């Protein structure tokens, strides 16, 4: 039950885009048509789902204050949490690289559809943001962090596909010249965010 609640919450209420503005750069840059948007969305879900549980374990057994106690009692007061940024970003960059190589080897079709997006993802704020929120939320086990990863990835996916669909339609409408392109996209995202706020306050 808690898993379902966490899942729904991370998709709709704590949506990465509308509530926290994470991954905005690639969100605006790659949402010009639905097909590429879907590709990037899937890649984000995938990478989040791989990196978040790994970073969770690293946080739990390496970085947290007192995390090193499993090696030896005398390490119990070591606090490495100031290293977490550098560890998380290194893990993300390395995993994106590995995922890229594995996908290229075993599924060339998937690679050709995801390929160009994978390197972009290493610097997508949504991925590092997921890990940092995971650290802040203090999940009790790996399962929770994986559910959170899947939920927030799906939320990001939904948001980018929806925006891409709206922008495809918007090509036919008369937007003031100075507002065309970037300006109107921002306002659209804002309005979508207001729509998503109806989910606020839902408790499961």
């Amino acid at each position, binding site marked *: 039950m808690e898993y379902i609640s966490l899942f729904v919450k991370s998709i709709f209420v704590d949506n990465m885009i509308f509530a926290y503005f994470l991954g905005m750069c690639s969100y605006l840059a790659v949402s010009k048509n639905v097909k590429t948007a879907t590709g990037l969305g899937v890649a984000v879900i995938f990478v989040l789902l791989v990196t978040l549980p790994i970073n969770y374990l690293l946080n739990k057994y390496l970085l947290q204050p007192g995390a090193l106690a499993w090696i030896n009692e005398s390490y119990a007061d070591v606090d490495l949490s100031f290293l977490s*940024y550098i560890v998380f970003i290194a893990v993300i*960059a390395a995993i994106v690289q590995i995922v890229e190589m594995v996908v290229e080897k075993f599924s060339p079709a998937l690679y050709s559809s995801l390929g160009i997006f994978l*390197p972009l993802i290493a610097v997508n704020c949504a991925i590092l943001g997921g890990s940092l929120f995971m650290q802040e939320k203090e999940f009790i086990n790996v399962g929770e962090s994986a559910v959170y990863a899947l939920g927030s990835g799906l939320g990001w996916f939904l948001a980018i596909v929806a925006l891409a669909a709206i922008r495809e339609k918007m090509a036919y409408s008369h937007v003031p010249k100075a507002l*065309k392109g970037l300006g109107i996209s921002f306002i659209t995202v804002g309005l979508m*965010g207001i729509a998503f706020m109806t989910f606020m306050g839902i408790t499961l």
Partner: protein
Amino acid sequence: MWRNQAMSENLKNVLLKPIFKGNPISVLVLGICSSLAVTVQLKGALVMALSVTIVTGLSSFVVSLMRKSIPNRVRIIVQLVVVAMMVILVDQVLKAYAYSVSKSLSVYIGLIITNCIVMGRIEAFALGNKPGLSLLDGLANGFGYGLILVVVAIVREILGSGSIFGFQIIPQAVYNAGYMNNGLMILPPFALILLGCIIWIQRSIQKDLQEE
């Protein structure tokens, strides 16, 4: 003599372009990721602007120092490590001297690492220019970025809570006459709508930026 002039022209360009004509947020669309969530109040926005300016300047400087010895294939990782190191420094300083602000900015300080503006300036400028110039370029871009943050934050704080830096500036008499704070301004979506409006204004003035 004219060479000196060309150099000062170049320097002026580096310093002034990011502030309006090539503003990293409204023109280049870099670094919106983590920026807007901190604009509910001016204080957070200022600290964020300052942190990004320092990180962008210093990492551009360091990468520019090493630009001849970084192998091209692993440069992204090297850059990420440099940037992460700078962000850790900023984070630790904030935690030591401004703990409450650092708590309220929560994950967004850490997210400066993946802020596109930092990597963007390193890739586009620091890898091909001298350290001093790269430092200035990074600082100027951070400043241009901070400017937008501060403008958005001022509007949101005045309309949303009637205050600046937490001091009430809309007098009580106005509230008694029936004026109310606009609660919508505090909500995240309004940061985006305001930014849309800023871009609208800028592009009305600067017609060459308009998209077809």
